[in-house]
């Protein structure tokens, strides 16, 4: 039985779309570190990720919010099957399913839903132990 179950995947889909972006940013900051979370979101200011976590903090622009949500989904998915260290190693890996690009490089420059899809699919394949 794979670690990522169908019900867990559905719960993750739900959380990814419904959680406030501040919570999403806080999770990423905790799991990946402030710099890596900021880099993943395509931010140039490291401290900006911390501002999003504050109750009275600013809202990220749409593309940044989408990157944070996709990053959250990937980090929680791989983290549940492995751990945060493995997530980081995968994010900075040379991924054969992504034309030998590093997932984090694609994430930080993604603007449209179609650009997130192959990255999330590749993460799910790792988390579900699909070759």
């Amino acid at each position: 039985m794979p670690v990522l179950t169908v019900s867990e995947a559905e719960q993750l889909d739900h959380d990814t779309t419904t959680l406030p972006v501040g919570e999403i940013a806080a999770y990423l900051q905790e799991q990946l570190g402030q710099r890596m979370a900021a880099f993943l979101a395509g931010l140039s200011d490291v401290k900006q990720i911390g501002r999003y976590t504050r109750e009275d903090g600013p809202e990220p622009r749409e593309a940044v919010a989408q990157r944070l949500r996709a990053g959250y989904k990937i980090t929680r998915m791989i983290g549940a099957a492995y751990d945060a260290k493995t997530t980081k190693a995968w994010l900075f890996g040379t991924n054969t399913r992504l034309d030998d690009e590093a997932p984090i490089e694609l994430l930080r420059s993604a603007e449209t839903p179609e650009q997130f899809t192959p990255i999330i699919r590749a993460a799910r394949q790792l988390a579900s132990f699909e070759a």
Partner: protein
Amino acid sequence: VNAEQVDQPLWRVGYREDPLGFVPPELCAWNHRFDDLHRRFRTVYLAGLAETALREVLADFRPNLSAIAEFETAMGSEAASELPSASITATWREQHVLARANVTLEGVDMRPDRALALAKRRTGSRVASAKVAMRY
């Protein structure tokens, strides 16, 4: 599986509790080479050599030096402290095992000439169906 390989063990690096198991259909990506376009059956991918099976799953963890350099440039020299110290983590190693599979094709004589004749006789088409049993 080539006819010559049927008597040889095959290899797969998979999840420790069920290394040769199928992924639940709902989680399948259905985008691998031999995956069914119509999603009627699932496929377990095996390698002829243990080394190949390992390379297959480790490939995506090769550190991308370009991405690492960009990360350090964008986020400062201290950013390196957030990178993992090893690309293959202890948890990854704990979660995977290298499994050996012996594949038995039941009902089909895999010698090339006989397999083709049997396939035509049984199905009347270009495709032969074979039941695959695996032991490991």
